[in-house]
């Protein structure tokens, strides 16, 4: 029993040292994916068909396939392409952390865009019309009228997504990144104590996620004007399949 605890203690110490790597991937891809998702959402309601098609294709591809395969294809697949391998991009693609961030940005942006799209359609029409009626357009309408409601509606699902992303960062370990899972897998390979090590790693992920969800819930509370749900009217022509 005592030996057991010492083992878990030393494993935890090793894992904690890998936390910054996990957080780095999460932060970079979280920010990039959100920005990209905003762009995709804008494209999804664009007037001309081209941006809409791009958005739909993007969502189709990146939401439709497992992230682990995407990471694999970006990391190993691009290395097979001569002009990447011998070009200047190789400096970036050589790095597994970069490849993970890239794959996660692409994949998660598709998910987040879908969330934003649903929320956008749920913003009450009347509020938007009131904005239009006093001469607001495009960006201002978005920032002053749509965004406040949209964020409030999207936040629970968005928090979900961020928490899923935290766990997805563990896939970086499959391409040699020594994040929490990477280190855990190394320890397992030498000790074969799968369950012990996974539990220690899980505790760390739980800690990160509990912190994140506490923060996001607090944000949700702050944004909620008077603790009662917002009324809303219409919603979306949802999820059109790629024709």
């Amino acid at each position, binding site marked *: 029993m005592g030996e057991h605890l010492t083992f878990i203690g030393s494993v935890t110490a090793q894992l904690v040292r890998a936390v910054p790597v996990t957080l780095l991937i999460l932060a970079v891809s979280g920010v990039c994916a959100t920005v990209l998702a905003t762009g995709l959402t804008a494209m999804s309601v664009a007037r001309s068909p081209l941006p809409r098609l791009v958005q739909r294709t993007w969502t*189709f*591809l990146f*939401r*439709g*396939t*497992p*992230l*682990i*395969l995407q990471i*694999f*294809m970006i990391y*190993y*697949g691009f290395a*097979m392409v001569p002009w990447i391998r011998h070009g200047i991009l190789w400096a970036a693609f050589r790095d597994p952390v970069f490849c993970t961030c890239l794959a996660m940005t692409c994949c998660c942006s598709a*998910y987040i865009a*879908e*969330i934003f*799209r*649903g929320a956008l359609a*749920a913003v009450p029409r009347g509020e938007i019309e009131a904005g239009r009626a006093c001469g607001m357009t495009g960006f201002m309408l978005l920032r002053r009228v749509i965004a406040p409601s949209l964020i409030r*509606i*999207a*936040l*629970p*699902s968005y*928090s*979900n*997504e961020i*928490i*899923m992303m935290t*766990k997805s960062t*563990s896939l970086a370990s499959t391409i040699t990144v020594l994040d929490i*899972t990477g280190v855990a897998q190394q320890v397992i390979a030498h000790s074969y104590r*799968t*369950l012990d090590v*996974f*539990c220690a*790693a*899980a505790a760390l*992920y*739980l*800690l*990160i*996620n*509990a912190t994140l*969800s506490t923060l996001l819930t607090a944000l949700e509370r702050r944004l909620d004007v008077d603790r*009662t*749900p*917002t*009324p*809303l*009217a*219409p*919603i*979306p*022509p*949802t*999820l*059109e*399949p790629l024709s």
Partner: protein
Amino acid sequence: MMDDLTLLGFGPDGWAPLLLKGCLLTLAVSATSMAIGTVLGVLLAWARLKGPRWLRRTALVYGVILRGVPELLVILLLYFGLPSLILSLSDTFGWEAPGLPPPFLVGSVSVGLVSAAYQAEIFRGGIGAIPRGQFEAARAMGFSDLMCFHRIVLPQVARVVLPALGNAWQFNLKDSALIAVTGLSELMRTSLVAAGSTRHPFLFFGVAMALYLVLTTLSSTAFHYGGRYSNRWDRG
């Protein structure tokens, strides 16, 4: 090229039958776990919004833990941890040792339990998006809570949550890949095994991606029509 075709064909050296079987298994696990997740998710959302204090707390803690812990661990614990515990208990107390639970069931249940935690959040957001007046109108007519939920909340919540549920479904499809640890050869493991055994990783991962895309397309078409239907009163 010829080589690739043989590998993907139905012949003695072709992986097509195994890959298709994997596909079906993936679909079955995802659908089962989605059903479990939706039912439990709705209950959890309801508990968080309307339950007594202790139930609200419990639902909250459930959500934080099941969302916070990597899915793989949930499966490992449920599939191996729990039976080991029962085994050691039955050893201690001299009971008849129960057999291991069927992998399919455990896999679906564990993915479903995780999915429920996510779906609870989605439904909570969705219910929050329904105008209060809608509930009040129902309550003023003497609807019970359950009826109010069934007749007023569910139909309206459907259109708000469908895109997010679509996300959850996609996630389930992919989470189902994790149940490979229970020994089930779903799509992901089949392609990993094929890639490892034939040393053609790109071929098989490419095929796996394509197959996932097929599953996705089928399901998002379903979601599309579901969305259209649930939204019929808001068009035009």
